[in-house]
């Protein structure tokens, strides 16, 4: 039953077959034909993009009987030996299992000997990022100045784990993810050569799922061929991958629009029973929500991924979008993103999908508020202004009223209260100490008359000090909520002598024109 899987069987044996990495292939071929081959290369890039393949091809190109040639013959003894992995000059080393310093030392020993069959000795170290620090360092001298005709090729998915001292000694090539179109072309080619009929839609689906990895794509194709009776159809691929189809997604969004929990839970349950991949379900739902937002904002937007998932025309998706509020769609994206993340963490997407659904169904349906009546708004503003004016008037009245009301208060209690409040606060405690000994006489309007007994000359002087006085007055204002001016040892009656006019006349003479 010795059967090679497709990705091994169809591993490219010519530079032209390596898809999606033209920038690298071109450079390498030019380097070979001009004889400017570096002694160390680093191939970095995501899984399944052709790193190991290119490394083997480079080894072939250099050791081919007709070589070094940019187009190895693939027929000569050397090419075949390399292809079958039994060449004595090409060492393919698994960096992840031979990662210690001892293995590297051993390797250094063999580097000194000349190639046996071909021209170059080629060391391909795969998964080189797993070498230990000591192993890397042991390699540095050899890597900088290797013996003639020795070539190192490092391949890795994680170049950031490689020390800078290694990086600076290599020529680095970064492999890109392979675009879907190129994957589809390659898959078509392979399935033709394999003599298997595959629907175009199925190939596209496989290419999308592979996310830029050729090996992933070929592996999926392999699985699909194994799974199907004769022709590989889109439906079979969907079933194999557990992909959610458009009708289920449409149902989900109808359920969300109605906020129907029970139906939604039943939908999840049936998706599980049919063997759907819930993670993919949630991711597609998220794409759809995003698409609906975009379509709502811009009716002319180019075709969106969510529309492909729903297999809907613009009119249809727009009418679906209008049945859901923007706020709710944003919330849907947030909730689903959280569920996806948690599902990956705990490998229980079902639970988090259910929780997400409950959260979304609980979101209230909001009445449309898109058209605000401008007239009503003005009306409201007017009313607000009126209320403001009224408030200001009331404030004014209150102030005046307060002044009148306190014309003749019980001065003793008023004074006690002030003292108490002064005492209660740390910053006014000083003033309390001074004022404590004073005696209140009267409160007329803003004027508070107080007097100090003979023995407390020091206290009086302190209170009389302009600066302190202002401070005390401002404190009193804060405490009582009104302006108060301290009058020390003044006779309140002096200022309101009923006989003031008569006395004045007595002194100055003259006539009183208006008595009041």
């Amino acid at each position, binding site marked *: 039953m010795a059967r090679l899987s497709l990705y091994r069987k169809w591993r490219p044996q010519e530079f032209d077959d390596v898809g999606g990495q033209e920038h690298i292939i071109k450079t390498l071929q030019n380097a070979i034909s001009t004889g400017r081959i570096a002694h160390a290369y680093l191939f970095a890039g995501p899984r399944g993009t052709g790193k190991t393949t290119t490394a083997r091809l480079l080894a072939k190109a250099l050791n081919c009987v007709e070589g070094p040639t940019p187009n190895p013959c693939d027929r000569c003894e050397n090419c075949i030996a390399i292809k079958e992995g039994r060449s004595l000059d090409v060492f393919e080393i698994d960096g992840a299992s031979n990662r210690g310093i001892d293995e590297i030392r051993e390797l250094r020993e063999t580097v000194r000997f000349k190639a046996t069959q071909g021209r170059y000795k080629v060391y391909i170290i795969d998964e080189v990022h797993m070498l230990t620090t000591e192993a890397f360092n042991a390699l540095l001298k050899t890597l900088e100045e290797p013996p003639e005709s020795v070539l190192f090729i490092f391949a890795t998915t994680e170049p950031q784990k490689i020390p800078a001292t290694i990086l600076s000694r290599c020529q680095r090539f970064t492999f890109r993810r392979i675009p879907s179109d190129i994957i589809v072309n390659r898959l078509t080619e392979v399935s033709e050569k394999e003599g298997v009929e595959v629907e175009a839609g199925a190939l596209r689906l496989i290419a999308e799922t592979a996310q830029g990895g050729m090996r992933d794509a070929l592996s*999926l194709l*392999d699985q699909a061929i194994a*799974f199907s009776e004769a022709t590989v159809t889109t439906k079979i691929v969907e079933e194999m991958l557990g992909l959610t189809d458009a009708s289920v997604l449409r149902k989900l969004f109808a359920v969300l629009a109605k906020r129907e929990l029970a139906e939604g839970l*039943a939908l999840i349950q049936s998706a599980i029973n049919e063997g759907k991949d819930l993670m993919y379900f949630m991711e597609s739902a998220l794409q759809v929500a995003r698409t609906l937002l975009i379509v709502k904002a811009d009716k002319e937007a180019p075709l969106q991924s969510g529309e492909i998932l729903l297999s809907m025309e613009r009119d249809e998706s727009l009418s679906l979008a209008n049945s859901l509020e923007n706020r709710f769609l944003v919330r849907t994206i947030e909730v689903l993103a959280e569920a996806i993340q948690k599902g990956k963490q705990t*490998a229980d997407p079902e*639970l988090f999908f*259910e929780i997400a659904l409950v959260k979304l169904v609980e979101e209230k349906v909001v009445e449309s508020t898109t058209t605000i009546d401008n007239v009503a708004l003005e009306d409201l503003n007017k009313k607000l202004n009126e209320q403001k004016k009224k408030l200001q008037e009331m404030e004014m009245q209150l102030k005046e009223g307060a002044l009148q009301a306190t014309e003749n208060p019980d001065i003793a209690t008023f004074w006690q209260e002030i003292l108490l409040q002064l005492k209660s606060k740390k910053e006014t405690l000083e003033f309390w100490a001074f004022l404590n000994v004073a005696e209140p006489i009267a409160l007329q309007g803003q004027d508070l008359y107080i007097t100090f007994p003979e023995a407390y000359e020091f206290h009086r002087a302190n209170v009389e000090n302009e600066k302190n006085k202002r401070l005390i007055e401002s404190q009193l204002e804060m405490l009582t909520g009104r302006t108060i001016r301290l009058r020390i040892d003044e006779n309140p009656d002096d200022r309101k002598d009923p006989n003031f006019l008569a006395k004045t006349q007595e002194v100055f003479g003259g006539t009183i024109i208006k008595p009041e």
Partner: protein
Amino acid sequence: MFARVIGQARAKKILQRAVEKEHLSHAYLFAGPHGTGKTTMAKELAMVLNCETGEGCGECSSCRRIGEGIYPDVKVIGPEGPSIKIDQIRLMCSFLAMSSYEGHYKVAIIRQAEKMRDEAANSLLKTLEEPPADSLVILTAENQYALLPTILSRVQKVDFQKLAQEEIISYLINRGLSKEEAVGLEEYSGGSLGKAIEIKDSESMRELYGDASKVVNNLQQLLPHEVIDIGAKIGKDRLQTIRFLDILTDVIRARSFKLNSNTKQDFGRVFGKEYAETQIAAILDYLEELKLYIEGYGNAQLALEGLFIRLRR
């Protein structure tokens, strides 16, 4: 073929077709929840490949020896302690590199592959990509997202699902449980046959199950010291606590989200109390948080007590 695996129609179909068409991959990943038959299926596949009748009869010498784990060409490895170590993988790779004793397929099964440490996983890559002829590597994992992308890209993935209620219930009845017992037990299994069997057979799981049902059914009636006692007893063991929380999660979901459940009560009737949908969702979220907290070496007893207090309010 695969008669001894319960459910998993799709997985069976995928593998059966691959075997019949002689289109088997050299590496598979069986991904799905705990106790859904991943390892059983892996062994069954090994039997099919090495069976004298080619059917995986379970009767012939090869099948029997594979079942007992003494067949020289089938090797099962799993975590030793908390993780799978690089030496285990190296040993496994050299096992595959040698030719087979019995002249058929060599099968290496790696259980809980997500527990491979980084070095171990990386050292598997080359073998996983281009293994020796007539050899098969099967990884099983509960959380496929914890595997390296470089591993995922080299294997064919076969998804395993939680089992349907009827499948578990009828299995339990076949194993000698009464209908009521089987129905009650299924509610606590969360669709995992493995868990249902564990509860049925293992003393400690039975006890845990009893505590869980006490909490689920009469939490509000228990006296405060009884609640604290439960917390103290289970909280001593981190693993027990996580299992306990798993059971709680499963039973809450069985009672509130599974609408066709045989044991379905009014939506949200758990812990002797009515809960609104959002409250249920919040409790489930909280349970997951607690699991992460305990896995992160938080204080299990404290976590349980906090949970009970919150639920009793």
